[in-house]
């Protein structure tokens, strides 16, 4: 693990100390990872990997980030994630449908903005209530949005069964409807939004969020505008979820119905955030990997190892039991989530072979 040695790396300017990745190895690593994801993966990964594993993994990481900004950084509990995703997806669909010639990415952006507006509306109760009570009021968003999208046919362009289908995907005349194209589109949007999120949490706003999270009375005393800070958290968190919803509908499934964004989806994203680590950017990827990849891995293994030996329904239930046990074990071992586990490992690796 001498790879992570800091020997010879000195900060000579304050700017060096404020970098996101202070270690040269970390910077090189992230560049290598990006190059790998942008250049190698689309060429080598199979359709199955691209469109059934990597795209949902990236989209759910983004949704996790949206909730993490709101809950992990600003401390506002929410179960409305799927509702904001639905608002984003359906708004983007309607912009694309009703505004002639609107570029694809612009409708994502507009969809995100509509979701942000919805976030502000449903965030208003947070000015008065906290904790579990706030969860209940965001739960209302969940049910209201699902109901409204089903009830009013206009949202789904009067499709009799209320299902919307994605328009052809193309950006600047480049057709992106192949699995690799959809993967690259998702990856690009996710990369940009993650970079922005890293900047946000290290800005004034991010610090205000954390102050409000840790104790909002104290934050008010030192002059932080609590109401504005909370509502901005809702707006930005919902924006991220809205864009994630658009990607889910357009880049991943190609179709979506309101029930695709039900309460279970909100729970799924919440678990991603809790398992990945509240108040961590990296945690969203780790949590999404855990929630998305592990069941798939078990299901593939279960199919090939136990296939034919025991009933397929039992195999499925066994996987669920195993998955639940793993979640419990992880949370006992590391209540702060996978991100904290990662931090611990890295801290050890940096001083290896000595012990801290």
């Amino acid at each position, binding site marked *: 693990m001498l790879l992570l040695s800091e020997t010879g790396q000195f900060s000579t300017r304050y700017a060096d100390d404020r970098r996101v990745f202070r270690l040269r190895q970390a910077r090189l690593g992230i560049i290598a990872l990006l190059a790998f994801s942008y250049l190698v993966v689309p060429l080598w990964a199979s*359709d*199955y990997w691209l*469109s*059934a*594993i990597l795209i*949902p993994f990236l989209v759910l990481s983004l949704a996790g980030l949206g909730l993490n900004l709101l809950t992990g950084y600003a401390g506002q509990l929410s179960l409305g994630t799927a509702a904001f995703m639905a608002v984003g997806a359906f708004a983007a669909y309607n912009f694309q449908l009703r505004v002639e010639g609107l570029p694809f990415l612009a409708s994502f952006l507009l969809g995100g903005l509509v979701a942000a507006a919805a976030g502000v509306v449903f965030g208003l109760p947070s000015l008065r209530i906290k904790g579990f009570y706030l969860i209940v009021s965001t739960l209302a968003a969940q049910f209201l949005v699902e109901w409204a999208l*089903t009830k009013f046919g206009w949202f789904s362009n009067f499709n*009799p*069964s*209320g*299902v919307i*289908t994605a*328009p*052809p995907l193309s950006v600047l005349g480049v057709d992106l409807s192949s699995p690799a194209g959809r993967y690259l589109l998702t990856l690009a949007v996710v990369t940009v939004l993650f970079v922005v999120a890293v900047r946000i949490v290290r800005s004034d706003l991010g610090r205000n969020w954390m102050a409000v999270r840790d104790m909002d009375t104290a934050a008010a005393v030192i002059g932080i505008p609590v109401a504005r800070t909370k509502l901005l958290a809702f707006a930005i968190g919902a924006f991220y979820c809205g864009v994630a919803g658009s990607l889910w509908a357009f880049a*991943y*499934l*190609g*179709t979506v*119905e309101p*029930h*695709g964004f039900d309460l279970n989806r909100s729970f799924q994203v919440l678990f991603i955030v809790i398992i990945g680590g509240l108040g961590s950017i990296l945690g969203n990827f780790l949590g999404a990997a855990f929630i998305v990849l592990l069941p*798939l891995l078990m*299901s*593939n293994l279960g*199919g090939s190892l136990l*296939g034919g030996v025991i*009933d*397929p*329904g039992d*195999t*499925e*239930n066994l996987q*669920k039991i195993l998955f639940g046990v793993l979640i419990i074990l992880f949370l006992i071992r590391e209540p702060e989530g996978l991100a904290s586990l990662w931090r611990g490992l890295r801290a050890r690796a940096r001083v290896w072979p000595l012990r801290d």
Partner: protein
Amino acid sequence: MTASRFSPRRLAATFSLGLALASGAAFAANEQYFPLQSYRVGPYAAGGTGFFGGFIDYMQLINARDGGVNGVKLTWSECETEYVVEKGVECYERLKKGLNGAPAAATNPLSVGIAYATLERSTADKIPLITINHGRTDSTDGSVFPYVFPLQLNPYSEVSAIVNYIGQKAGGLDKLKGKKIVTLYHGSPYGKETIPILDILAKKYGFSVTHIEVPHPGTEQQSQWLNIRRIKPEWVILRGWGVMNPVALKTAAKTGFPADRVIGNIWSNSEDDAAPAGDAAKGFISITTHPAGTDFPVLKDIDKQVVKAGKGNLQDPKRFGNVYYNLGVVNGILNVEAVRIAQAKFGKRPLSGEEVRWGFEHLNIDNKRLQELGAVGLVQNLKLSCADHEGGGAVRFQQWDGARWKVISDWVQADRALLRPIIEKSAAAYAKEKGITPRNCAKEG
């Protein structure tokens, strides 16, 4: 470059050699593969285990009794979807490549949501998507949806057949004038799909129709049934799903609405829908394309060759021959027949999805074939074409006697000529939105 080097014969020889090598490499196993996006856990497990149980048992029968289809063994593997859309998509992507070199013939997700989500993927990957008795109504128009097959009965035909049956009971469709019908529907895309078509039929025949929604999951229906009692309709069409069905029957009994005036649709027609309501369900009528029962010769064969041999797929042998199971058998018959028809054209070898698609499009199940299959009365006459991917459009009516379903009518046809222009209009709109040029069916023949 001499002319002789490009002689057509030589070219043909080279070409066929290349083809033989390619197919030899890809289809070494001499097996035809069916990817099964099944669901055995979750709220709809009753439907999933029955349907896929019947489907698998029929394929086992073909392998055990006939040694496969013309010597090509059938093989399959399962992937659990839990009726969840994204799991279904994952399963689709996982299984579409085939198994050990055996190419995938067709996908049968038995879920509207999954079918919608894999519709374009199937078309791009050239694997037929079979949505028996459900699915997207306008995919009946095969010129726009070449790879999608809502076999037997699409949602519009279903409603039309019910109205025709009500007309028969009244003594003619002209007697429907002034009658009152209420539809009680599940508050979901599936439940709402038939509202526009019922309105059209109501206008045409002069009856009045009231649509009443039951929000998911439908465990509380007191106010809806009080409303029905106030309207006093001649018939109630129950467009339910899962737990909503027995609750509807119980509440009907409580509010004094007779069960034999309630007609269940294709997803309100199983033993699991009627039995939990107990006495309240006695007399309840529903439609079916696949009557329950074990007396059909094909089911007797399955019993003898598969179930008695200890290879039956059902965990609970009592469910053998129930509604869901028989739907699976019917689905198996239609899939296998499509493979058989395609083999007659392309050769007796494992076929690609594209070739099996041709087989589906040329499905022609007449009475003679039904006799041979041992499925008279279980499967309806079915003739598909490039333009028509549904083929049947007929249902039978059955009545619950408190313990089992009794078939009470012959096949009742939907008014498909009336529905066709509506379907074509919707398909054309889809084609325009997606930039698809419809196939010219006159040319395909």
